[in-house]
């Protein structure tokens, strides 16, 4: 069965800390995504990557960076955590190629991050 694994289900950090969220997929997918999910706002794309070492900004990249050194791993970095970054963070992956508009995204179970 396909799997996207996020390193932590719950995380509590302090304002100003550098925070790393890790995501690993075992499906050999080219595309990987980081979203944050807040009540009433749906999923908002932070960054995505379509290949190793490639990254593209999503809708809300400010305060975040990403790293993709290997195809299966996509890391989200909060450079200096702030309280407004308290949220649910979801990682997803999808195939590239073929009829890519219909490629489903496969999600991890999320990391609920609290910044105090």
């Amino acid at each position: 069965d396909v799997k996207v694994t996020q390193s932590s289900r719950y995380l509590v950090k302090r304002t100003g800390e550098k925070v790393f969220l890790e995501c690993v997929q075992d499906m050999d997918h080219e595309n990987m995504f980081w979203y944050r999910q807040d009540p009433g706002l749906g999923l908002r794309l932070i960054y995505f990557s379509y290949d190793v070492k490639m990254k593209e900004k999503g809708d809300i990249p400010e305060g975040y960076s990403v790293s993709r050194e290997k195809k299966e791993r996509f890391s989200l970095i909060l450079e200096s955590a702030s309280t407004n970054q308290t949220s649910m963070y979801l990682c997803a992956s999808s195939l590239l190629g073929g009829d890519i508009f219909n490629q489903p995204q496969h999600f991890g179970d999320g990391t609920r991050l609290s910044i105090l």
Partner: protein
Amino acid sequence: TQLLEQSPQFLSIQEGENLTVYCNSSSVFSSLQWYRQEPGEGPVLLVTVVTGGEVKKLKRLTFQFGDARKDSSLHITAAQPGDTGLYLCAGPPGVSNYQLIWGAGTKLIIKP
């Protein structure tokens, strides 16, 4: 900016009732995907609709894509507590090969 608006935002009904939730846009989408997200988990794809007017059935769930490909609906017949969750629609914007635009979701609670 393309938007997907879902309605209602919240729906709580008794087991056995029927319901319909909607996903609407002023823009045309080449396809729309429906996901269900259960508490504590990530969204899981239910279905993708591609052709205008298309109807797809998944057991008691019926998905329809509007003729003009600007809207979609999900109808659940004889809802069960296992249908509880957040239902999200998403579609690819015309200029991007990788991203999806997401609706805010309909939170559905089915009471036993």
